[in-house]
């Protein structure tokens, strides 16, 4: 089987021949290329794909490379949570908005949105420190919603966004990925309008005050953003993609259970129904602490919980997650990134951890092995190689309990 076939079978709940192993390498690659610290045998121009092929693992083409833009337009609306990246299956265009962009002396980008109902602005940063640490996305330093009156402006922007198919863009991506992995069509990071508000539109701490202080404005914004989401999911559902990713970064402290249940779960369920009606697999990015969210995720209708982390980085065990999901949702992840770091555990502890992991996930149904959230820049190369070897040696499905 190809890597793609293995991933698709695991995502659909069918048996593959072998446990798929698909580590996310882009951040590791960016940082090590910059530092000139690729492993022996890999030249300075080595691509992420060549690294994956060298390891014999699937290509992780699930999360877009947010910094890999073709033109500034690709990421200029990052402050609204909107990207137009290579490989996207849709384009979101702002209508009736005069956008003014300027660069500050410190390199930050200020984007002003002037609409018939008022103006808002945001500030996007990407510092040298972020670059050196291998950050994968720019940072919103000032959010578009800073005052109660900004809600109406942002609402107006979203009400007037036109979402259109960009399937050729996606097909080129799909063709490039080929059988090396699964080319997932990316939607947006906020699974729902309220999660978008939390992630992109207001400051993360201020968000909780906003829910308490301005419920009417928040509700109006939800209504204003709903047509954008509906268009988006319709376009993704009709796309040539086999799998679609919507929503990211759940955590039982940040998106705590009552918040998730009220403001995220119904939307996930809604998108699941639309995507499933078109035969699409529904991925969502579950890279935080999932312990308190398990029954809600289990009821969400998603097919794949992607970037699932495990102890010692979180409390939620893979066993608990597999039990809660009851064979209905595929877990993608399982290797916490810190186990690849020398300072977090010794080689012997790493070996024991990985053996324990294989035992824990046996028989290995509905599982795609990955590193959560991603392979860190300082990962010990021989540990990555070792995981790939273990998959080769012990990864035949169903896994044996040893």
């Amino acid at each position, binding site marked *: 089987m190809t890597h793609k076939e293995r991933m698709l079978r695991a995502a659909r709940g069918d048996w593959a021949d072998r446990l798929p192993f698909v580590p996310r390498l882009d951040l590791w690659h960016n940082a090590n290329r910059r530092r000139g610290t690729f492993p022996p045998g890999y030249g300075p121009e080595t691509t992420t794909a060549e690294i994956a092929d060298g390891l014999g693992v699937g290509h992780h083409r699930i999360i877009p490379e947010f910094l890999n833009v073709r033109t500034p337009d690709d990421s200029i609306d990052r402050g609204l949570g909107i990207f137009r990246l290579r490989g996207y299956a849709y384009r979101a265009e702002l209508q009736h908005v005069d956008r003014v962009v300027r660069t500050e002396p410190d390199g930050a980008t200020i984007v002003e949105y002037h609409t018939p109902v008022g103006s808002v602005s945001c500030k996007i940063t990407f510092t040298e420190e972020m670059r050196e640490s291998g950050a994968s996305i720019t940072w919103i330093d000032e959010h578009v919603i800073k005052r109660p009156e900004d809600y109406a402006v942002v609402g107006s922007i979203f009400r007037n966004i036109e979402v259109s198919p960009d399937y050729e863009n996606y097909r080129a991506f799909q063709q490039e990925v080929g059988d090396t992995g699964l080319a997932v069509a990316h939607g947006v990071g906020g699974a729902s309008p309220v999660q978008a508000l939390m992630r992109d539109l207001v400051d993360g701490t201020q968000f909780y*005050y906003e829910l*308490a202080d301005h419920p009417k404005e928040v509700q109006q914004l939800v209504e204003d953003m709903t047509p954008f989401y509906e268009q988006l999911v319709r376009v993704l559902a009709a796309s040539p993609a086999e799998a679609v990713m919507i929503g990211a970064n759940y955590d039982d402290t*940040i998106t*705590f259970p009552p918040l998730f249940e009220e403001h995220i779960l119904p939307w996930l369920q809604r998108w699941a129904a639309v995507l499933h009606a078109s035969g699409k697999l529904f991925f969502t990015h579950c890279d935080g602490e999932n312990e308190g969210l398990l029954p809600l995720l289990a009821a969400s209708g998603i097919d794949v919980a992607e970037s699932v982390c495990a102890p010692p980085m979180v409390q939620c065990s893979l066993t608990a997650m597999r039990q809660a999901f009851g064979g209905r949702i595929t877990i993608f992840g399982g290797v916490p990134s810190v186990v690849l770091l020398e300072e977090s555990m010794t080689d012997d502890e790493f070996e024991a951890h990985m053996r324990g992991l294989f035992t824990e996930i046996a028989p290995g149904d509905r599982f795609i092995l990955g590193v959560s959230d991603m392979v860190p820049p300082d990962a010990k190369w021989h540990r990555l190689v070792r995981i790939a070897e273990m998959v080769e040696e012990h990864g035949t499905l169903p896994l044996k309990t040893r």
Partner: protein
Amino acid sequence: MLDEEGLRQAVLKGDRDSVRTFVTAALDTGVDAVKILNAGLLPAMDVVGKRFGAKQIYISEVLLSARAMHAGLALIRPALARAGGGADTKPVVVLGTVKGDLHDIGKNLVGMMLEAGGFTVVDLGTNVSAQKFIQAVNEHGAQVVGLSALLTTTMREMRQTLAELRRSAGTVKAVIGGAPVTQEFADTIGADGYAPDAASAVARIKELVAPA
């Protein structure tokens, strides 16, 4: 007079208008600001911290309670300063997210709960260099420094910051926290404490500043 129970309930509900009303009424009738702090505001936040630690309430309730407490604190601060007590005598904790990392919700939560726990918090924000930590620790005479990182990529910065603190900031105790951080990592880099969440951060820092 001070309606202690009313004030505590107002803090617990995150009702800052009621907190202001109770505190103003108490001040108007000559109640000592220290009493308002110690009998009303801080005990209520202590309950909030315990409930959060026990997962009985959620982050939004903690933040709203902390904001309500701050509304009351703002009203009594002048009286506290006149009395020569309060902030100046509290142990100081310098907090920040290390260089290269801009995430702050976890750090903010720790800061609020530390303030509620009777500490003076100097919050340096995010993307904080080792030099800034050292400067703040020395300037404020901090007993503890809290380093936060959400990204695996910035753990290395945590190690370097701690090493520089050890060289240049005397005997300050260091506690680290954040998603990728583990007790093993804390031990490896020589941190004095590791906190997996905000509630345990406060508990660990209290242990560190307690008289031996």
